[in-house]
């Protein structure tokens, strides 16, 4: 009975991905270093990927794994562009917090 209870079901994986997504949300809201905020966005992307793979196995459908492949490619492109923007903003600037970027407002 206990052995049957201890087999991880899809709900376990989904709850884990929800917790990971929540931690990533908290990091984006709280941290001020733009690089760390970016890492937290990666955490959220990974949480979504984990739930996609879990549902692919649960629904017995390979399309869930296919979209994770595309999400990974788009995430790689997003990291490249985002880090390029951060480098371009931060190059002539000593500050490291996102709060100092107030001249971006119109």
């Amino acid at each position: 009975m206990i052995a049957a209870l201890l087999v991880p079901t899809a709900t376990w994986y989904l709850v884990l991905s929800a917790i990971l997504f929540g931690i990533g949300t908290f990091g984006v809201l709280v941290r001020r270093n733009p690089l760390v905020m970016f890492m937290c966005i990666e955490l959220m992307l990974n949480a979504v990927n984990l739930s996609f793979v879990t549902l692919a196995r649960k629904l017995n459908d390979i399309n869930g794994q296919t979209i994770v492949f595309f999400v990974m490619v788009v995430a790689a492109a997003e990291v490249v562009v985002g880090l390029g923007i951060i480098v371009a903003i931060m190059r002539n600037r000593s500050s490291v917090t996102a709060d100092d970027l107030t001249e971006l407002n119109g």
Partner: protein
Amino acid sequence: MEFFVFGCAALMILVGAVGVITRSHPVHAALSLVLTLFGVAVLFVAQEAHFLAAVQVIVYAGAIVVLFLFVIMLLGVDRVENLRTEPLTAQRPLAVIVSLGLIGILVAAFTTGSGALHERGEGINIPDLNTGTDANTTQLAESIFSKYVVAFEVTSVLLVVAVVGTVLLSRRIKSVEVETSK
């Protein structure tokens, strides 16, 4: 056995994720991110997504984290951030409320809606002696290169645009002005 794997991987993921948001040094945060990404790769293997686990380790834990570390070193922002001070009043309590509420809503949806999930696909090939040891990779490749081949080709355009855009962004404007003034 699967419980043991899940427990270890979940521990890796949560410790790494908490490390990303609590370590004040950006390099430590990036290394905590590696721990989380490896944990997710372990769970991919546990759920028969072997190709995605390999891509996860190579692309995420390899390329993306190395890119993060490169930018940290390049910008010289590897300074310790003071996490004690709170720039906005009540920012952290509100962030706790928002993220816990998000987790609560998601968990409620997963627990109540899990009965509505039913198998609908053609099935996922699990590697064994009958279907071949690379059954998952073969099936994923058949899906990508037949049903989603247009999306795959558009992805290449996206990557080219990203690379060209990053080169344009990170080019020094001063040198351009010098060249045009000559």
